[in-house]
């Protein structure tokens, strides 16, 4: 592999990784706060992608409106799912909650298939063209995707670390009971977390459509799993961790595919995850779990 090809592949990986990172953040935040592996998160991206598709391809709305629509619908859906399906189970065993999430995920996928049809919906790319940087061909989509996700990551770090709502979130994830005693509204904070996570999924869905131009009812499931792996790899509950995890997986996939082992891509991702977890059981930047006796 020549050097320029290597750089091109790294950029490919970072573009994919950016989408993973955005989705991983949603997983990470929700997991951090209610310890739920939110299987339906990937499917929220799917709904967001369909919204973008219909807005642009069927109603010919300008892209900006379409993006706003996708983010709004994703956010509302995320919060609705949380209110209807997860809130009543907050005190139930964790596994019941997990199965509910799986059920919601099935429901969204099958519902989408009924509503939108089983076939992929495809639209013309929103961003076309590329630029030659030396010998390397870089598409504008890649540049936009990477930039958007980095900016969002910085914004999110600011929100979580500096604002009142962010502090509430951190408090709830630290100790739910104590946070409540300090006057933090549990319901509102958890809904807030879902809203932010789902909004990020909405943005992720737009970036996904820019890169792959297609929406299908089951597009969310594998994307969701990969993103969750990214979140675990980076350390669950950590914003920079999600970014690192996402980029690691994206670049790993690109390099494995580049050397001709694309069919081993998924296996490689999981293998790296397993190795990392064995040596660092909470991921790159995860907090160490203290076990109470």
């Amino acid at each position, binding site marked *: 592999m020549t050097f320029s090809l290597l750089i091109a592949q790294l950029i490919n990986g970072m573009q994919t990784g950016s989408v993973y990172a955005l989705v991983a953040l949603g997983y990470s935040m929700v997991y951090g706060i209610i310890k739920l592996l939110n299987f339906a998160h990937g499917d929220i991206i799917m709904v967001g992608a369909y919204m973008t598709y219909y807005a642009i391809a069927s109603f010919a709305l300008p892209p900006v409106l379409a993006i706003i629509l996708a983010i709004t619908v994703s956010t509302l859906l995320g919060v609705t799912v949380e209110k209807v399906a997860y809130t009543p189970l907050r005190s139930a065993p964790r596994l019941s909650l997990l199965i509910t999430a799986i059920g919601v995920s099935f*429901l969204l996928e099958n519902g989408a298939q009924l509503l939108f049809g089983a076939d992929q919906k495809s639209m013309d790319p929103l961003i076309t063209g590329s630029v030659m940087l030396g010998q390397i061909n870089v598409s504008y989509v890649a540049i936009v995707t990477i930039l958007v996700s980095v900016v969002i990551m910085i914004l999110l770090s600011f929100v979580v670390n500096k604002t009142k709502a962010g502090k509430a979130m951190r408090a709830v994830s630290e100790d739910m009971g104590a946070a409540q005693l300090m006057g933090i509204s549990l319901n509102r904070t958890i809904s807030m977390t879902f809203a932010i996570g789902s909004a990020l999924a909405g943005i992720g869905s737009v970036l996904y459509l820019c890169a792959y131009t297609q929406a299908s009812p089951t597009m969310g499931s594998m994307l969701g799993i990969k993103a969750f792996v990214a979140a675990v790899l980076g350390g669950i509950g950590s914003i920079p961790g999600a970014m690192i995890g996402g980029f690691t997986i994206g670049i790993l996939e690109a390099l494995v595919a580049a050397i001709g082992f694309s069919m081993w891509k998924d296996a490689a991702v999981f293998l790296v995850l397993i190795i990392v977890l064995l040596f660092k059981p909470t991921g790159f930047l995860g907090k160490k779990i203290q076990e109470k006796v």
Partner: protein
Amino acid sequence: MKELKLKTPVRYLINTVLIVVLWTLVTLFVAGAGLKGEYYRGILITIGINIILATSLNVVCGYLGQLPLGHAGFMAVGAYAGAIFMKSTPASQLLRAGNNAAVIPYIIIAVLISAVVAGLFGLLIGIPALRLKGDYLAIITLGFGEIIRVVLTNIDSVLGFKFTYGASGLARIPKFTSLNVIYIFTVICLFLIHVFMKSRHGRAVLSIRDNEIAAESVGINTTFYKTTAFVFSAMLAGVAGCLYAGYIGSLYPSTFKFMKSIEILVMVVLGGMGSMLGSVISAIVLTALPEILRSFSDYRMVAYSLALVLMMLFRPKGLMGTYDFSMGNTIENIVNKIRNGRGSKHE
């Protein structure tokens, strides 16, 4: 008045009678269904396979209290091991000639091979995976399950000769899984789980679920028992896989996707974690449900997922909770109730 207390041999006798009665009912039921008999037979076999899968996952999930998401991987390993063995035997010709009795030794060997191979994989995966807990264990077993599937798809191109036949599928597997075969093996598997759980080792596993640190502090070797339960569960999943291969006749790696593991997990959780009866019932219901919903065709998967969510919302502990059924206990209870009732009248 003295309470009725059944002795162990009596209990086993009751259960044996129960098993024979159920077998007679099932056989009569299929024979009596006329044209639809074959259809019901197919569903009953699928139910049997799912019962083994669900109850075996229940060992790790319900009794050990861990959450593995790679059960389909063990099923796949067992299915391929058993199928490759069966293909090398003359079972196919024997079955075609109607010489079913002569196939029995091959079936037993195939099932044992499947169990051993799946068990070895269980050991290989269990030792590193069980160092982790909770959702981390879930994600790592998910990873292993996916790796097994990817390997099954691509191993031929690495080895350079035909072994699993990759994506085009391992076909022409002798179809040895009849209703009787599945019935016998389902009973055996349930019996093995029962015996394991009632033994000292089973109690140790339960104590780990309830409080791992406490279990360790009273001298239970937690790593050993966790691994044992995990391997045991994998072996039974391998058996289920082998029987599946013998029913379906052709295997594809894509059958054993992550979604398959989820399906099995859903059965366990819906039935109630830690309840064998729950796993059995939900395996029956969840296998039959899509068939019953056939007339809704387009809506049936939506209905299935909706049922799942509603079930969890209204019965978050599952159908049975941790309740387990024992015919012996039930008889004891009923008899004692009647005796007590009568006794109080006399006084």
